């Protein structure tokens, strides 16, 4: 290892970490006051990682240049994205084949049916891939990053998986558009629509829940995972609410929600202490009157956007805020993203990036605009494919994102990206401006990829690499080798701990 370059950089890095570099203040004694500390590029990058996917270096500069309040306002009042095209139906024969199977499906040995089944399976798989890349593309390119981030939150919250339970075609995309429409809308209203959503009706079996045999799956998860949390209802409440949701189904031909009154249990139910002839909508309204509902949303929002083990006091404050705004999320998110808690030391880099954040953020960082289907395999190895949560509980997140297998998958993704320079924009910051000095290159990598969040010794190792340490040619950084060397160094920088953290 070339000691000279490394030790020079080591000294420089040691000197370059004054305490003012850190965000102001530790956890305030009165949570959720407005943040009034300094505003800089590092905090703008923090905001963009949390309220979006990280953004490009120019996005970060753009937000850093305006006052914090304006930056948050720009993210909250996002431009309309209504014109964004939905994914194409990759093959419109799917419906036709489906019909063929339903007509002749009784005889499983029928060759025509076997062939139709195989074709249908292939079509659905192709559609599935198209749906995932459609959303990833949208996350990368969106002019409304917070809208996509909230949509991702809601997808993990009302977690539904495509490719199973007969969820295919655009089922999951329609649900996704529902989440997007309600990204910062009223989440009680959203929950009423979730109970009517075709993908959800299939996923948790409510479409088949009939008076004689109520299916408890949706009723249980509605309370356990979506609204109240375990311990805030009884088994009896599960059984009674399952009765109330009987008849919530969809019309097979149109796929539209349909209330089948003949299969609805019209008798009296006792639910969370109230008695009446309730239907599913009544159940949701009763649920949202419970103090546990805003609390569950508060905990989950804090864990997703701020830090993973929020103080009970803070949860209570955010729950009160949600209740005060009657589950309208725009004012809630606006307050959170402007708060002293959000910009505290305790929140900074205190979340593990999800694989989707890791991948989409890396694409934005390097200006890569088109998502290749192979990325789905990489995301799968990292532990998160959009539209494919492991269960209705969604992804656990936090430390659960990290294990030997998923960390290797992250490194391999970064490595393959840095081995495909043709994917990046011609004028990429990484190689723009010709060969830099080792010191400038190290500073650029550290500040652009990590906002300076690297240890001095790691940066010394990086500088050593840039100057040929451990490389086959063992030559100093030069006009001939600098592009390849910069890509290798960018890969190594993305392998550093801070890049795994949001």
């Amino acid at each position, binding site marked *: 290892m070339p000691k000279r370059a490394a030790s020079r950089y080591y000294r420089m890095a040691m000197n370059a970490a004054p305490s003012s570099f850190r965000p102001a203040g530790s956890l305030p004694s009165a949570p959720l006051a407005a943040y009034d500390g300094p505003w800089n590029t590092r905090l703008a990058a923090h905001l963009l990682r949390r309220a979006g996917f990280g953004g490009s270096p120019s996005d970060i500069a753009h937000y850093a240049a305006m006052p914090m309040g304006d930056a948050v306002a720009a993210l909250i009042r996002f431009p309309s994205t209504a014109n964004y095209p939905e994914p194409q139906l990759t093959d419109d024969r799917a419906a036709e084949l489906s019909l063929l199977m339903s007509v002749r499906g009784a005889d499983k040995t029928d060759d025509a049916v076997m062939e139709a089944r195989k074709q249908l399976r292939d079509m659905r798989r192709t559609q599935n891939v198209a749906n995932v890349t459609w959303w990833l593309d949208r996350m990368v390119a969106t002019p409304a990053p917070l809208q996509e981030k909230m949509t991702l939150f809601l997808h993990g919250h009302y977690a539904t998986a495509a490719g199973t339970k007969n969820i295919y075609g655009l089922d999951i995309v329609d649900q996704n558009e529902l989440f997007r429409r309600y990204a910062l809308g009223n989440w009680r209203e959203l929950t009423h629509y979730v109970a009517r959503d075709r993908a959800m009706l299939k996923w948790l079996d409510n479409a088949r829940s009939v008076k004689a045999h109520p299916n408890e799956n949706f009723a*249980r998860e509605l309370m356990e995972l979506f609204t109240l949390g375990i311990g805030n209802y009884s088994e009896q409440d599960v059984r009674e609410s399952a009765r109330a949701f009987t008849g919530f189904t969809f019309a097979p031909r149109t796929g539209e929600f349909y209330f089948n009154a003949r299969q609805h249990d019209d008798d009296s139910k006792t639910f969370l202490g109230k008695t009446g002839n309730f239907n599913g909508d009544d159940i949701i309204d009763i649920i949202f009157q419970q103090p546990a509902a805003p609390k569950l949303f508060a905990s989950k929002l804090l864990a997703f956007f701020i830090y993973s083990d929020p103080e009970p006091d803070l949860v209570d404050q955010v729950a009160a805020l949600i209740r005060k705004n009657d589950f309208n999320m725009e004012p809630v998110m606006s307050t959170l993203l402007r708060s002293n808690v959000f910009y505290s030391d305790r929140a900074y880099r205190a979340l593990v990036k999800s694989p989707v954040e890791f991948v989409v953020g890396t694409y934005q960082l390097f200006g890569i605009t088109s998502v290749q289907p192979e990325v789905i395999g990489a995301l799968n190895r990292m532990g998160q494919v959009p539209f494919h949560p492991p*269960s209705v509980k969604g992804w656990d997140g936090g430390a659960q994102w990290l294990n030997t*297998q998923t960390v290797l998958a992250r490194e391999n993704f970064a490595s393959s990206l840095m081995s495909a320079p043709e994917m990046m924009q011609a004028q990429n910051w990484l190689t723009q401006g010709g060969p830099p000095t080792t010191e400038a290159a190290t500073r650029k990598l550290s500040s652009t990829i990590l906002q300076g969040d690297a*240890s001095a010794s*790691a940066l010394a*190792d990086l500088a050593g690499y840039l100057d040929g340490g451990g490389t086959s040619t063992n030559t100093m950084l030069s006009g001939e080798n600098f592009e390849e060397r910069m890509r290798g160094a960018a890969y190594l920088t993305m392998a550093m701990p801070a890049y795994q953290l949001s």
Partner: protein
Amino acid sequence: MKRTRFLIGAVAGLSVAANVDNLFGRALAQPILPGLPSGTDDRVLVVINMQGGNDGLNTIVPHGNQKYYQYRPTLGIAPNDVLQINKDIGLNPAMASLKSMYDAGNVALVQGAGYPGPDHSHFRSTEIWQTAEPEHYETTGWVGRFLDSANLPADNLFNAVALSPVLPEVMIGRRVDVPAIAALQGFGLSSDRNQNERGVFAAIDKGGSMPFDSPYLSTVAMIEDHAQRGSQELPKLISGYKTDASYPATPLGRSLALAAQIVGSRLGTRVVYVQHGSFDTHAAQKQTQDRLLKEFSDAIKAFYDDLAAHGNDKRTLTMTFSEFGRRVAENASRGTDHGEAAPMFLVGGGIKGGLYGEHPSLDVLDNGDVKYTVDFRSVYATVIEKWFGRQTSGVLAGSFPTLTMLT
């Protein structure tokens, strides 16, 4: 040569610094506790999680009970189809391979396993089985606590392995970090960057003083270190294992093939976690459950054939669990909803096969569910005390009577 220091378990508030130069795969040489059986220090436990809630009544079928057929008008398995164990019960017909192992005395069926105050949530009940704590929330798993208490060498990266894409809670301890390996292929740094960067990657300082603090920082650094070193070493350490066994081409078959390779390579691995499923059969149960039980049964047979061919069948115990059984009465979708007690399988050359515990009664139900007859923690206690020769204190809260399939 640079010596890397890293922190184990700092996130749990414990800091154990370790030097980590070239200390892979060293076999265990820790003495077991005095007064406990000897010769247990190369024993391995394979834990199979049957995820989603496996229906117990269609696994060990009470074909002698008319009530079963009344509750299961379409899902009931006819007496003639059941692989009969006795006049009352028998195995699901999909498990012919396992039945042959049962007949050879290598399978113990624990009937009616469960716990007091059964929870019907997948997530909470899975957590309960993994943490062995039905009454309160616990962040470590029982295997994790066992590993912590077993005086395992801190420098062995493979004290236990989870053959799964996500590290399950059961393997989480305070001191021992367990690697997750979804499959051997893909467990490694890809070769599309040159070897040199790999070298730098290994050397690059993952610790050091940072201009920020994060509760995850030490965890990230540790896992990156383990991932880097472990993925380079594991393929080398197990490459000497040759086998003629033919496993079913299923995810479980592949996992158990790798498990046999790891066990047979004697890396000091004490516990291997494998998952299988999902058994969450709310609708059209028969198709799904029969397929999954057949996959399980065939893969276990191949696994033990492989282990036996290498003389490892007697040192390898396999134990299954599932978060719950299912409702006694079938639902309108030819499926079953979440229930309570369900059987566990213990398989291996070192056990006394047969039936353990009572088959749950269909006469006295708990709100439509069968009640447990064996606390699952008794099975864990049996494994800890009789298989590993260790005490359960610090691993299980409370004392539980052991069963007699292990002596």
